[in-house]
């Protein structure tokens, strides 16, 4: 159990990931699916960021006075780009949902599948 | 002694090619001028006869030559070779065919398909001449198959239902026989590596006995179908009555003889006398031949249809030839060979008479022949003469061959078969003489058609039909009387027997 405790951050990320996945798969409303997707994305970002943080370290602004270890800049870059990607995907998804709603009048995946 | 002349001038080649040419000519039968076409077609058999005669003289003078026409396979050639036996057989075929042709002109005067008849008969002639002068087994088979299959068309010529049935039966037998021959030839070829007629037989001493037996049995059975040996003679009885008269004369005269001739070739020049003796096949063959001779004669007696009776008589006569050949001695072989020629002319004449009677008087059965001698004096005279010759009354041809055969048997130590010979002759008398008796002494039976008005002398039949009958009878007499002259058929036969059976 102690192993899990000091890796609480990872555990949290995994739980969030699973919640998002559940929403994506089980919910039939398209918007809820997108929300689920976003939760999963945040979970992965948390996983990467916390992996890169140094224990009581400081942000990677190199100024002579700080002695403690820095947080890892590369992880943060990855997440930065990841966030932009997430935003783009969500933007496109929402526009698709808008169009589906305009055309089919419903955004429930089950009805959509039926009304091929 | 054999001269490998490849010259295309050799008479043997022409003897075969000429009828072929005539066959093609007669294809255009319809368009030929009426008068001229018989002369044109007639030249073929007559010319073949002339060529055959030249060859016979050549053989008698001691020269024999071989021609290789075309190479079928690596060591298999289409070759023609004239030896004594071949010359003899060739001559008898050609002569008989000429007379039959003359007869057929009259016989088929108003037949619609005469053209077709002549085509196929010329093809048969070509086949037979080929068989006579074949230089090796393959050529022999080629021509043998040719005339066997072509004669189908002649048997079915009349188009009557019985003709169709007979022809179908005939073709089944022939096809079966043909296959057996091919198998036997292949077996011999595979064992010996060559398929030509070698003096002492092609199968060397080293061949495994089973192969030798197989080849011998297959070949003999193959030819036996045509030679109408006992189990295989079924087709003869139906074919003769159905076929048009001139053809049945040819059929009995020479075509069945071709089968026996085949057996002679195979026995002496393919399997070889030595092997036959070793495997005891010769004795088996002799037994079968003897049995056939007797049984056929017995059956002949009961036949009411004249042609059917003559057919069975052919079967029994042919059996004598096979018997003679199977004794593996020059003596009986000579008798057998000379009997081929004699029988050809005798039986040919008989069938022509039967044909004439059937055509002019509608008489087919012996019972109808009561008192026709008055109406057909010449025909019946010829018929009687030939019948007597067949029975073996000296000095006619039949007696000569039977005498030589019998003497040969004694000489070869197979006296037992003499009984068969004499018994056969007696039976022949039993089934022929009554016909003559009825013809002369019997009163005309009422149920004969009115057409038989009281005989008007002189208009018995067209001269073209009578002439061949008379000629054949003359030949029979000549063969009998001049048998022992030096150029006669007998001397040729003795020469052939010496060359075939002498070398053992």
């Amino acid at each position: 159990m102690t192993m899990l405790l000091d890796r609480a951050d990872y555990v949290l990320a995994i739980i969030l990931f699973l919640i998002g996945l559940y929403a994506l798969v089980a919910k039939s409303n398209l918007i809820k699916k997108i929300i689920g997707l976003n939760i999963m994305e945040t979970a992965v970002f948390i996983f990467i960021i916390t992996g890169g943080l140094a224990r009581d370290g400081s942000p990677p602004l190199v100024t002579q006075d700080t002695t403690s270890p820095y947080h890892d800049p590369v992880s943060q870059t990855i997440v930065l780009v990841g966030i932009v990607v997430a935003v783009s995907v969500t933007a496109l998804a929402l526009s698709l949902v808008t169009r589906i709603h305009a055309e089919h009048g419903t955004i429930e995946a089950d009805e959509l599948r039926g009304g091929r | 002694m054999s001269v490998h002349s490849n010259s295309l001038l050799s008479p043997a080649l022409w003897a075969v090619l000429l009828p072929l040419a005539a066959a093609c000519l007669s294809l255009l039968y319809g368009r030929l001028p009426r008068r001229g076409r018989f002369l044109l077609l007639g030249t073929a058999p007559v010319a073949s006869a002339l060529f055959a005669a030249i060859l016979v003289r050549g053989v008698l003078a001691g020269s024999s030559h071989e021609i290789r026409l075309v190479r079928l396979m690596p060591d298999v050639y289409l070759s023609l070779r004239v030896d004594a036996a071949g010359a003899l057989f060739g001559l008898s075929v050609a002569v008989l065919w000429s007379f039959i042709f003359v007869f057929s002109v009259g016989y088929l005067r108003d037949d619609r398909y005469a053209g077709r008849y002549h085509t196929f008969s010329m093809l048969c002639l070509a086949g037979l001449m080929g068989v006579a002068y074949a230089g090796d087994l393959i050529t022999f088979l080629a021509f043998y198959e040719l005339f066997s299959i072509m004669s189908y068309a002649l048997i079915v010529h009349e188009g009557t239902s019985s003709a169709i049935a007979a022809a179908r039966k005939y073709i089944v037998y022939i096809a079966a026989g043909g296959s057996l021959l091919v198998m036997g030839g292949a077996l011999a070829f595979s064992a010996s590596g060559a398929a030509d007629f070698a003096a002492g037989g092609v199968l060397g001493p080293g061949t495994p006995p089973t192969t030798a037996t197989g080849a011998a049995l297959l070949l003999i059975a193959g030819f036996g179908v045509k030679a109408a040996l006992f189990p295989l003679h079924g087709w003869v009885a139906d074919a003769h009555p159905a076929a048009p008269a001139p053809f049945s004369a040819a059929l009995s005269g020479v075509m069945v003889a071709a089968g026996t001739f085949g057996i002679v070739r195979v026995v002496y020049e393919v399997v070889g006398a030595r092997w036959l003796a070793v495997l005891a096949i010769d004795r088996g063959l002799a037994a079968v031949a003897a049995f056939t001779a007797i049984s056929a004669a017995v059956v002949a007696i009961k036949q009411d249809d004249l042609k059917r009776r003559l057919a069975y008589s052919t079967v029994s006569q042919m059996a004598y030839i096979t018997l003679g050949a199977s004794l593996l001695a020059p003596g009986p072989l000579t008798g057998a060979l000379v009997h081929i020629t004699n029988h050809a002319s005798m039986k040919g004449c008989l069938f022509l008479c039967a044909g004439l009677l059937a055509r002019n008087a509608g008489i087919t059965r012996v019972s109808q022949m009561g008192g026709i001698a008055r109406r057909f004096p010449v025909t019946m005279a010829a018929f009687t003469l030939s019948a007597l010759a067949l029975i073996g009354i000296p000095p006619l041809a039949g007696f000569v061959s039977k005498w030589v055969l019998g003497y040969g048997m004694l000489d070869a130590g197979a006296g037992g078969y003499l009984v068969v010979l004499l018994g056969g002759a007696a039976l022949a008398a039993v089934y022929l003489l009554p016909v003559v008796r009825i013809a002369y002494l019997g009163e005309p039976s009422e149920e004969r058609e009115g057409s038989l008005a009281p005989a008007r002398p002189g208009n018995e039949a067209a001269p073209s039909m009578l002439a061949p009958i008379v000629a054949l009878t003359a030949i029979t007499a000549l063969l009998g009387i001049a048998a022992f002259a030096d150029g006669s058929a007998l001397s040729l036969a003795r020469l052939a027997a010496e060359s075939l059976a002498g070398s053992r």
Partner: protein
Amino acid sequence: MPVEVWDIRPALAPMVSFVCALLVFIGGSRAGWRRFWSMSAALLKFIIVASMLPGTVGGVAYTFRFAEFAPGIGIGFRADALGMAFATVSSLLWVVATVYSIGYMKGERSLGRFFGFFALCVSATVALALAENLLTLFIFYEVLTISAYPLVVHDETPEALRAGRTYFTYTLTGGGVILLGIAMTYVVSDGVLAFGHNGIVPPDTTPAVLAILFVMLTLGFGVKAAIMPLHGWLPRAMVAPTPVSALLHAVAVVKAGAFGVVRTVHDVFGVELLRQTWLPDALAYLAAFTIIAASVMALLQDNLKRRLAYSTVSQLSYVLLGIALLNPWAAVAAVVHIANQAVQKVTMFFAAGAIQRTTGKTNISEMSGIGRRMPATMGAFGVAALGFTGMPLLAGFISKWHMSVGGFDSGMWWVALVMAASALLNAAYWFPMLYLAFFKPVSEEPTLGEARPSLLYPTLVCAVLVILLGLVSDLPGMPLSIARTAVAQAFGM
């Protein structure tokens, strides 16, 4: 072993008719154009193939390779004796068939497509014959299958389409099996697929693998060689127009299958390797069964073309039987029979086509008295029929004779029996037809005349060929001598 000479001609021959196919496809609508190109391509190809004949007989194998995927496999052509035997016959008959089909198809629809695929088929057949390795053979084998389909369904009737589907199902499944077989060969012989080494499969392969490989290849090719259980498609494909049935189902397509089996036995396995196994005997028994059973089936058919189809099935198994005996004589019989059967069968098909075109009759029962109406056509048919029954001095006799001698030579006496039985059966189903044609008394007078010249002359030419192949079969250029050279190479004599 023949000397390998680098030469364009083996590749040029198929290329010629491939180009012709393209040209005909493009300009197909104009009859003149179509006729000119088909004829010239057929003639040119025959000349090229014939020009290679002296070389082949002289022991030279012209080779040409291109499009090598990897070392050892790619599209390669090698005109060895066996290939030349098949190629010569196909290209010769193609010239005659082109004339015939021009006459036969006059007035039909979509002829551009017909002649295009017709030329494509021939280019595939010749390429297949001259293939240098198993892969090239398979490639053109499938091209042949595909390009034959439009010809089978040319009439576009539902029945033709059904026949086409059956044709495809059979031949393509066979193709699939062959592909697997070739892949196995490729793996087993690690990369060698070329012919000419008397066997690619290494002698030390385990018997089980050898058996699977042999079964796959022979049955794969067997489908097209119409060996008994797999022959179903051939009779149904008779729905195609007669020139197609004549050429494809008597010469090109079915012979490709038989040729494939010959290549498998001689060049993929090699005779020595097979001698120790039971496999060739099994093939021999199957082939023998097919010969007899197919002939019996032919007896029962009333439709002339279906009877011809079953007779083809039986004749094809001659080739397989000859090869399976692993004996030089029988092998010569097999190879020479490829030519003999082709010529005889094409004559019969042409005659059947002529009869159908002139009198519209297709069933034998309706054909009484046809002989007098069309004497020349029926004469040719008769010659071919006699050839099949093994009448000496005709093509059929040569193969039967060699086969029987081979049979006795290799100790399998029953082979001669099969030959005899097949001859009898052939007689049984051809002679009644001849009787019907010539001798059956027919009431009405013969009204219609002989077939059109463009149909009659090819038939007569083929009939003469049948006689020639029988008579002078031993001249240097003729199939028998090529067959003997091929067998000499295969048996390493």
